[in-house]
């Protein structure tokens, strides 16, 4: 069978297409069809020729096989130091082999590549920091994901995710109307307690345009309310766009570069339309990376920077605390031991370690770092899209052991992480391993401990 009904090389571009695709619960038929999905060898060869340039070639060819990357990989550590989990081995036996065979590969090989690219690597980029040659295996796996996506060898949920971006410009089925309704609903819910609070939609020339993760309007609208309260307390002139509000990119995890471009362009057009001075991104790691770090390149922006200066939420909070826009009531600081988990996507791809430490020093009395931390922190175990992929649940749960042990070693029972993916993974970690921890974003704590300025009213319920 060259291409299947569900499993094929076509992207999902319509609402109906998405609905039909999702009738195959869990992708049972999809993966069955994949076993006979033929590789389009000429297309793969052409794509390798077009995109495999000096950087990737050098990374593949000059690996000296020193093995320093082994201990840097949480999958390697969590799987009892299985040599097949050494990052260099993983990339050499997949992308390296594909290149050595000049794209002349078969279906079982491509399925193996898929299982390694999504099930054994979260593209956390940690191994890059341990390679004397500066080889970035996270970037190479991301590249491999792109090749696999173009050939139809992509996990079921990733195909849905990129389809969602193509259809809704969001990772979930949220329309402009749904989003605007959620904003209005949260404004109504919150303004009783906070008279004068607004969630301004499509205001031009605001100081801040605030963009979010689709999970917030879909599952956690309270997060949007918390963000509104904090902007209200800080006296920010802010707005949300009715369109182009979604920062995340499952398309990036899927390797669907066309959808990734469509997604960031929707955000950049909101910026062009509303002309804000700056953008602030919610507490999400990959959203920030997709729209702020990688997105400008997908959109063809020459200097590699988004159209306006963009802050991750931790940067905005740190700035608001430093400038006194937000003040913390010292009596309300977190008293119990608390630790903090850095998201790979902003710690190793955006350098935000210091702001996070500053925030923790302001809100916690007994802050305990994990070891190692900052740029050397381990992935939560669910990054790179892995959290959402049913096929690799076992691999994900095993990988989380490293994060579990890091948390346990701090003695803290509360973990703060300003990232949706990490938040999910730590929640699941507790569900699987039951170590008695709680987890939170920053916003709920900030709302509880922020000082209400004299000119604002707060009517407690």
């Amino acid at each position, binding site marked *: 069978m060259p291409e299947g009904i569900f499993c094929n090389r076509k992207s999902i571009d319509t609402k109906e297409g998405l609905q039909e695709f999702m009738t195959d619960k869990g992708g049972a038929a999809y993966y069955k069809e994949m076993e006979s999905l033929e590789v389009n060898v000429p297309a793969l060869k052409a794509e390798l020729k077009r*995109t495999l*340039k*000096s*950087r990737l*070639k*050098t*990374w593949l*060819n*000059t*690996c*000296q*096989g*020193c*093995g*320093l990357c*082994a*201990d*840097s990989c949480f999958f*390697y550590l969590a799987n009892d*130091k299985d*040599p*097949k989990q*050494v990052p*260099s*081995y993983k990339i*050499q036996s997949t992308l390296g082999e594909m290149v050595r065979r000049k794209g002349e590969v078969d279906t079982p090989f491509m399925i193996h590549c898929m299982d390694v690219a999504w099930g054994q690597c979260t593209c956390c980029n940690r191994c*890059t*920091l*341990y*390679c*004397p*040659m*500066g*080889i*970035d295996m996270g970037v190479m796996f991301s590249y491999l994901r792109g090749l696999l996506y173009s050939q139809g060898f992509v996990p079921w949920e990733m195909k849905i995710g990129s389809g969602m971006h193509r259809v809704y410009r969001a990772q979930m089925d949220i329309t402009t109307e749904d989003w605007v309704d959620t904003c209005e609903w949260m404004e109504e819910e919150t303004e009783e307690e906070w008279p004068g609070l607004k969630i301004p939609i499509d205001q031009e020339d605001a100081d801040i345009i605030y963009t979010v993760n689709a999970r917030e309007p879909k599952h956690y609208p309270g997060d949007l309310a918390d963000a509104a309260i904090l902007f209200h307390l800080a006296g920010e002139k802010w707005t949300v766009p009715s369109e182009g509000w979604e920062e995340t990119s499952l398309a990036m995890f899927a390797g669907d570069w066309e959808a990734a471009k469509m997604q960031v362009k929707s955000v950049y057009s909101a910026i062009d339309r509303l002309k804000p001075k700056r953008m602030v991104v919610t507490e999400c790691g990959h959203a920030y990376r997709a729209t702020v*770090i*990688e997105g400008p*390149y*997908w959109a*063809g922006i*020459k*200097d*590699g920077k988004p159209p306006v200066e963009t802050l991750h939420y931790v940067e905005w909070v740190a700035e608001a605390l430093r400038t006194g826009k937000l003040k913390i009531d010292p009596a309300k600081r977190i008293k119990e031991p608390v630790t903090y988990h850095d998201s790979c996507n902003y*710690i*190793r*791809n*955006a*350098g*935000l*370690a*210091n702001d996070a430490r500053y925030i923790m020093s302001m809100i916690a009395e007994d802050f305990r770092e994990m070891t*190692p931390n*900052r*740029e*050397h922190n381990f992935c939560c175990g669910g990054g790179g899209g892995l959290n959402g992929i049913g096929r690799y649940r076992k691999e994900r749960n095993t990988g989380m052991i490293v994060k579990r042990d890091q948390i346990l070693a701090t003695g803290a029972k509360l973990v703060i992480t300003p990232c949706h993916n990490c938040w999910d993974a730590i929640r699941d970690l507790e569900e699987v391993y039951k170590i008695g921890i709680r987890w939170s974003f920053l916003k709920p704590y900030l709302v509880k401990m922020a000082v209400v300025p004299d000119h604002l009213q707060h009517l407690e319920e």
Partner: protein
Amino acid sequence: MYQFITGPLLWLSFTIFFVGCFTHVVLYIKDLDEALDRVSYTTHIGWAIRGALWSLISWMVPFGTRSWRVKPVYTLMFYLFHIGAVIAPLFLSAHAVILESRWGISVPTLPDVVADWLTVGVIVAAVGVVIRRFILPEVRILTTDRELGALFIAVAPFVTGCMAYHQVGDSTYWTLAHILSGELLLVAIPFTKLSHLVLFFCSRVQIGIDFGTKRGGMKSVGMPV
């Protein structure tokens, strides 16, 4: 025989070495692609230079990165090997004599005893690296003929040179073997994993620019890549 291998063959070896290395660097730079690599190489020049230097210096200084610090035994072997392999041949008085007599070029030299110990260091480190390759499963799985072959070619001139210097057995034999293995090394560098002699610098500069301009270098000084 001696005339040939120290004459035309030496010239040929040096030509292949220099042209090969130069070609590697030129092709590397020419093929960098801002859109595909998603790195803006030509804007943020100041940050790019800073990132590139930070990347090079951090990794060239022994124990300059966390990666070196968490593996101290390997790091010692690594630097023992590389420092000796670069310094000993470049500043060996016997090599300087040839340069002076052939082309009248005068270069500074190391005392013979220092060069000798550096050579022994290279050989000891190479033995250590090979043992490590076979006893550690995570390195064994990455070891192929390409890695072992490159190491063998790289170490051969040091072993033969050491034998010739200490006049063990037939010193003419060891001298010829030393010259030939040295020429083999020069020729092999562009065509094997030994091309990291130049590609190390290309790769480190590239990743240094990447992290220095795009991935956090403008916000955090702590990125050791």
